[in-house]
């Protein structure tokens, strides 16, 4: 499934993550996936949320810099070698993954990964084969 991911620029200081999750909680927005990439000074908080539009509006209202990108939500068998079997297909199709992270919880015995690639439609085709 292709979903929109919200990326938020964050400074590495105490309370920053608390502030953002607070803003989303106030609007009754649920987090489905979360990941942070960071350097010493700053980081990128990546989110998949239940209601993108109100999340974007709420964060912009609070002066956050945001970028919205399509990402693939890929089902992975929750067994040893599960991720390997998926990545084999992707590699064989010559698709480069910019980054990936796992999603909260599991679905019908499957884990799920979020993958960021240049062409989400192509990846969707490859993993559903």
């Amino acid at each position, binding site marked *: 499934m292709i979903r929109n991911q919200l990326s938020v*620029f964050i*400074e590495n200081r105490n309370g920053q993550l608390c502030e953002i999750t607070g803003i989303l909680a106030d609007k009754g927005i649920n987090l489905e996936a979360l990941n942070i990439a960071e350097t010493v*000074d700053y*980081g990128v908080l990546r989110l998949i949320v239940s209601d993108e539009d109100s999340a974007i509006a709420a964060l912009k209202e609070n002066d956050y*810099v945001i*970028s919205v990108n399509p990402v693939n939500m890929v089902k992975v068998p929750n067994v040893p070698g599960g991720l390997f079997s998926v990545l084999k297909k992707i590699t064989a199709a010559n698709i480069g993954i*910019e980054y990936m992270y796992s999603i909260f919880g599991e679905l019908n015995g499957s884990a799920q990964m979020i993958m*960021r690639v240049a062409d989400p439609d192509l990846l969707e085709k490859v993993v559903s084969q």
Partner: protein
Amino acid sequence: MGNYYQKEIECASREEIRRIQNEKFLKQFKHAWENVPYYRKKVEDSGVSFDDIKSIDDICKLPFLSKDDLRDAYPYGLLGTDLKNCVRIQSTSGTTGKRVVAFYTKDDVDLWEDCCARAIVAAGGTNEDVCQVCYGYGLFTGGPGLHGGSHKVGCLTLPMSSGNTDRQLQFMTDLNATILCCTPSYAAYLAESIEERGLRDKIKLKAGIFGAEAWSEEMRADIEKRLGIKAYDIYGLTEISGPGVSFGCSEQKGMHINEDHFYAEIINPKTGEVLPMGSEGELVFTSLDKEAFPLIRYRTKDICELSDEKCSCGRSFVRMAKPRGRSDDMLIIKGVNVFPSQIETVLIEQGYPANYQIIVDRVNHTDTIDVNVEMSNDNFSDNLGKINEMEKSLVSALKAMLGIHANVHLVAPRTIERSEGKAVRVIDKRKI
């Protein structure tokens, strides 16, 4: 060798130029002394008498004029002739306080337009060219100056004034403009708009004459590539006449000062001492043959250096480097002169908002400079690697501009405090 508008004077020998400057200066000093009581009092108060000034070598004895004098004397206090002889005013807005107004007689306008014509011809302009002037017309000298110069050269002049990009591009393509006169930032914006609209093949521009704001060599290269032109500098200030006080030639190594009309000195901005050729300091101009608004030793606050090295374009006029900044804002870091405006230029070129903070400190007896920059929507990416790359390219662009390393910190939007209108740009924590 280049193209000249007034070859005889532009390529005169240094001795001849000095002779002309000496002769004109003595006349101009007499003119100001006799017709501008404000100036005469200023000179007398400094303890100098008329007879002390026997040649242009004595100019260093005279007091400086500054923007404060122009404000004090507003509007007529520095006028050197009857109002009935004046045909024009131009005006410049300061960041603070009153506007400054300069007056022109017919001859003053004429010599100013000659200076602009020299700049246009140096950029390859002839009567076969179509010159699009998108500097503002009105009180600002940019539009009227280049417009007059373009007439003198005989170019077909498109008096566009600033703004309205759609109309600019329509005339540029329909009328085959070959020379573009505007600010470098507007040139960059036009280049972008041309690319967006796929008009590159319809553009016939060959040269651009850009001034009125700071810009770097990187920005020049970028504009030249994107518009397929050669980009020339032009420099001037309303108080002295307007654009064309100095202009770039085909060599692109500084701007030739129109020395038959303006005498340039470089001084130490703190002591006022005249510095030798090649030193960096504050640029001071003396008008040599202005009737309405003669200014002797006017401090521009622009920091740059002069060069009297022979230029391969054939002109013998001394060249000035592009001003690096304003003397008011100059910081000395690791012995190097740094101006916030240089940092601002780099930030804008790299797509960051011009909202920044410079923190200067001294750690273990070494100066450090840190620049806090607000992240913008344009530069943000979900990919940390890309942000890192942009940050690195910002660091190296700053190094290229400043000559020293600056630490860059990307911060969240609106975290750099803004005081009333003007932000606190520089925090100097050094205890010296």
